[in-house]
């Protein structure tokens, strides 16, 4: 398996490294953390490849709860056990919460200022581009085959274009996609 090969070739990842990596993702994660978790785990640290990241995120999405929080727990446990799960979670949530409390009063004083509003709006527009760019990058690396790629496109249309409730899209498409993947892997 790919995971085992990775685990053998690379030095073990410590809880401290997990805390720092997910802390960075949390602190950079303006408008969403998923693109930053992808950048840091896949492109900077090279702890996962694109496909493994997409698989982990997929598991995080069928579970209830915030997707990247689920990803941090699962990845943390996989590479460093309970301490790893705790460290990854604490890194993802802790530093951003400190920032949030610290800037809360600043935001109340200056958040309504037109220039601040304009800058935040521009950053939000960029954050949307970041999310879309990450999706394109992952899609190019997936090698999913026509059926599975079709399921991904349906998920995009259902949740993004038609704005169906996420729970319907996820629970409706997951069994189909899993069945398609099962067929594909059966010789």
């Amino acid at each position, binding site marked *: 398996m790919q995971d085992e090969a990775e685990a053998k070739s690379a030095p073990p990842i410590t809880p401290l490294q997990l805390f720092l990596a997910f802390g960075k993702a949390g602190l950079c994660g303006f408008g969403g953390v998923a693109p930053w978790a992808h950048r840091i785990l896949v492109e900077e640290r090279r702890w996962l490849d694109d496909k493994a990241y997409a*698989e982990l995120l997929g598991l995080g999405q069928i579970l209830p709860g915030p997707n990247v929080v689920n990803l941090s727990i699962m990845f943390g446990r996989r590479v460093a056990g309970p301490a790893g799960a705790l460290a990854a979670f604490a890194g993802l949530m802790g530093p951003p919460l400190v920032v949030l409390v610290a800037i809360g009063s600043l935001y109340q004083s200056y958040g309504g200022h037109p220039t601040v509003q304009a800058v935040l709006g521009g950053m939000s527009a960029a954050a949307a581009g970041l999310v879309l760019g990450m999706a394109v990058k992952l899609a190019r690396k997936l090698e999913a085959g026509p059926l599975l790629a079709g399921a991904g496109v349906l998920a995009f249309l259902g949740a993004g274009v038609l704005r169906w409730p996420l729970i319907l899209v996820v629970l409706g498409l997951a069994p189909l996609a899993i069945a398609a993947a099962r067929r594909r892997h059966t010789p």
Partner: protein
Amino acid sequence: MRDEPLGDLAATFALLSLIAIGGANAVMPDIERQSVEVHRWLTPQGFADLFALAQAAPGPNVMIASLVGYHVAGLAGLLVATLAICGPSCLLAYGLAGVVQRYRASPWLKAVRSGLAPLAVGLIAASGLVMARSVDRDLLHGLVTVATAGFTIWTTRNPLWALAAGGAAAGIAAAL
């Protein structure tokens, strides 16, 4: 407000944690309904302000729950709300990680993992589209979104540059 705000926060957000399939955005309307109508912790405008603050700050979107907790009961409320909205789903994720490790050779589990990956990518693209639709009110914002997507796809430079450029462009345009 009732006598036990911490208990109410814990119960409210722990339940939402377990129904938030698809992530925090899936239960955002429920978080608003619980905070404004059911428990009357916030006015509609107060919730909108907290939502704007959570969007403006870095970190997972789920921190809106932390902010509601902070508003209701200070730091204790922040901790209780954060742990309540993350705890139950985190325990499930922790358990699933163990199952995935134990049965990683199973063909069914491989199918689950490789089947969910394209859905994850489709849903990420969908959330990008939803974000873009809500913020791209004019040509400038649309261009910032497209340029940042291109920057992300074709360079490995730090995306903070793109965020800063987007913020600066919109700030300058508004000042002119």
